């Protein structure tokens, strides 16, 4: 592993850093403090400068370290800690300048070995990501292009572009895929970067363990020394006050240390219930990128790519069918494809036709159809079923023969759509969420007791979900 850069490049790298410094300090300062400096070692974590004696170290550390670090950032594109190696007797060092190379190399090799050791030990703990989730495997379409581009930018230059990066989007749209891709891209590019990928649930569990076993220091060390911290499903931090607080400090430590933070969630930061506002504001600090449901073309592209990966051949209309019928969730799309693929492999590689598909994917399609039910459809259907006017669904009148169907409709709206209580209330003529909740509870009880109601509800349900 090329942990330490070859020594012959060091003078050139130093020359670049030095010329960046030259523009920042006066010629007097440069000549006095930076002319005699040599770069003797460069690793991903630090660089070592050799100075004639300790006054250089004291003075540079006190006065020029920030300039030096920004010059390093400019040249090496990532921050390093600056160390000094002193040759206390300048005359000796100069006369020995022809010979000291082997010693330095030996030292560098020693260090290299040490670091390789620590890295291989850390390799299993730092990753834990699916190796198939790469940028190459991610199908880009108009709805996820922005998020993908943001992730790519972050992976190319961690902590320089968007920090923190907050990715959000519904289930199965590729949040985790993108996070893994970032982690693996950085890991591939810069060996030895400490990458920590974790779900917020694991974070919580480890935090609780750490409290119980009194190993908070170790816990903090693990997270606060990361170069890149990827936290998946951050919405699970909601309601966990102490974990949020701990995470807040972790976040600050990393952010102040200019480390990259990437977070994912199923909704934007401001909509995560009971997440502390200071966390919300921090999450919104960097870039927030949304992953939306891919359009049909993208879904077809995803299917083709996946099918390629499974090395199966399918009829074009199969792709079209799947892409059109399964709209909301890429994961479900892949599940359907897997099922089709296994069917094909059981039938000597023959691709199923559309009728076969319908039967094969019955349950998935049914689930999928549910998602697209609107309150309006429910209202129509229920009004039709009970033979009341559609207007009665939203009217203020409440005789029993109207009120009950309305309650059934509200129940179905709550069961079959993802709409919130207050939205359902609004759709039913501006009723408040309490009314909807009451209707839901009432119908639910009635289903248990009354066969007629149960029958009606299940009939309506199946009609709507068809």
């Amino acid at each position: 592993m090329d942990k330490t850069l070859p020594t012959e490049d060091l003078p050139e790298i130093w020359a670049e850093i030095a010329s960046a410094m030259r523009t920042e300090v006066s010629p007097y300062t440069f000549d006095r403090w930076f002319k005699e400096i040599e770069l003797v070692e460069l690793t991903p974590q630090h660089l070592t400068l050799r100075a004639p004696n300790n006054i250089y170290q004291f003075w540079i550390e006190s006065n020029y370290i920030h300039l030096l670090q920004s010059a390093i950032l400019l040249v090496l594109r990532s921050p390093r800690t600056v160390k000094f190696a002193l040759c206390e007797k300048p005359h000796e060092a100069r006369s020995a300048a022809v010979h000291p190379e082997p010693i330095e190399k030996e030292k560098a090799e020693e260090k290299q070995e040490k670091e390789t050791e620590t890295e291989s030990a850390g390799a299993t703990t730092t990753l834990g990501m699916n190796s198939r989730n790469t940028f190459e495997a991610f199908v880009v379409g108009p709805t996820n292009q922005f998020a993908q581009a943001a992730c790519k930018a972050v992976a190319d230059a961690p902590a320089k572009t968007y920090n923190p990066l907050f990715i959000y989007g519904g289930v199965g749209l590729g949040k985790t895929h993108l996070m893994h891709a970032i982690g693996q891209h950085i890991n591939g590019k810069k060996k030895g970067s400490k990458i920590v990928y974790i779900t917020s649930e694991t974070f919580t569990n480890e935090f609780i363990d750490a409290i119980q076993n009194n190993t908070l220091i170790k816990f903090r060390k693990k997270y606060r020394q990361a170069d890149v911290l990827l936290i998946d499903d951050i919405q699970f931090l909601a309601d966990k006050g102490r974990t949020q607080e701990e995470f807040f400090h972790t976040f600050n430590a990393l952010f102040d240390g200019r480390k990259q933070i990437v977070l994912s969630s199923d909704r934007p930061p401001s909509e995560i219930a009971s997440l502390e506002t200071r966390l919300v504001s921090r999450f919104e600090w960097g870039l927030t990128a949304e992953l939306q449901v891919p359009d049909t073309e993208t879904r077809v592209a995803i299917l083709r790519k996946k099918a390629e990966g499974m090395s199966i051949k399918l009829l074009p209309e199969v792709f079209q069918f799947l892409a059109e019928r399964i709209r909301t969730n890429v994961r479900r799309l892949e599940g359907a494809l897997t099922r089709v693929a296994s069917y094909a492999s059981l039938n000597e590689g023959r691709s199923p036709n559309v009728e076969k598909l319908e039967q094969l994917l019955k349950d998935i399609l049914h689930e999928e159809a549910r998602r697209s039910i609107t309150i309006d459809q429910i209202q129509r259907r229920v009004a039709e079923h009970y033979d009341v006017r559609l207007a009665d669904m939203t009217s203020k009148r409440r005789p029993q023969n109207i009120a009950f169907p309305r309650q059934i409709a509200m129940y179905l709206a709550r069961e079959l759509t993802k709409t919130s209580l207050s939205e359902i209330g609004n759709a039913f003529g501006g009723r408040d969420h309490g009314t909807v909740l009451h209707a839901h509870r009432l119908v639910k009880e009635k289903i248990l007791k009354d066969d007629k109601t149960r029958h009606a509800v299940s009939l309506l349900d199946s009609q709507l979900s068809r």
Partner: protein
Amino acid sequence: MKFSVSKEKLLAGLQTVQNVVSTRTTLPILSNVLLQAENGQLRLTTTDLDVGVSGSVDALIERPGSTTLPARRLATIVRELPAAEIQIDVDSKNVAAIRCGQSFFKILGLPEEEFPPLPKFEDAKTFAISQQALRDALKKTSYAISTDETRYVLNGILFSFKENKLTLVATDGRRLALVDLEVEFPRSQEVELIVPSKCVTELSRILGDAGDIKMSVGENQVAFQAGETLLISKLIEGNYPNYRQVIPGEAKERVALEREQFLNAVHRVSLLSSDKSNSVKLVFTKNNIEIAANTPDVGEAKETLPVAYKGREFSIAFNPEFLMAPLRALSNDEVYLDLIDEMSPGVIKIQSPFLYVLMPMRIS
């Protein structure tokens, strides 16, 4: 042992030595003062193992002997006693009975044998330095001592005896103060040593206005003897940085400033420099300096001083505390500020051999 001594003398003796007394209680004996009575003298000694001080006062010795007593407690008692003769009688169990007028105190001491002896000096290099000059030189340098413990070689003052000169240097990496003193010594005695900050503080305390102090430099310790008072300290081991590297070359501009006026102006303006951007800006124009500071969201301050300045117009910013420290320590009416450019260090000089290098702050 038994002796009597006047309150003033005993109190003066205790005050000379009590600052060294360790506040750490790991070794109880270190919070005690060693009292030795013989030949008409009462000798008082304290140490914290790094620095030790010893002084003596005239006393009427009735029964010679020695003991150790809690230094701070003894000093508090003596301070409160009426101005009169104090009689102290210590029995063989180190219990001291203190009588003064109608007051009586009994305090428990520790045996003399437990007290760590001060180191002896053999084949040391000795120097005689004017007390007044040394006191003045310490005052002009000691404020620049670094308190950063990771740079322990900077936690003291460098005493460099070379070519019939004693050079004192203190720096913390952002500023450097230096004084040269004329001292006579043979070439064979040239030596460099780093005297720790605590010893410098004690030394400033014992230095008087007249006469010389005798300085003895041993292997890794130093002793200062002024009259009856002896101060012994360990030295900081290590190499003091090559401070000459820090001193800028020839200055481009020189401004003569009235010290007090300039100090007061900087002080007033610095009231509106913030903790975050702790700087005051000096803007030089023809025959004028404008001193300015501002803190976003708070306000700003400006003050102009007429000066004899004919150089180019430019501005430079300094940390106000670092700028004021030497101005406070100096006593000259006029100081010179030498400058090269905005980003190079400024140097404060006076007519005598002193200089103070101060790093500028970046003007944002």
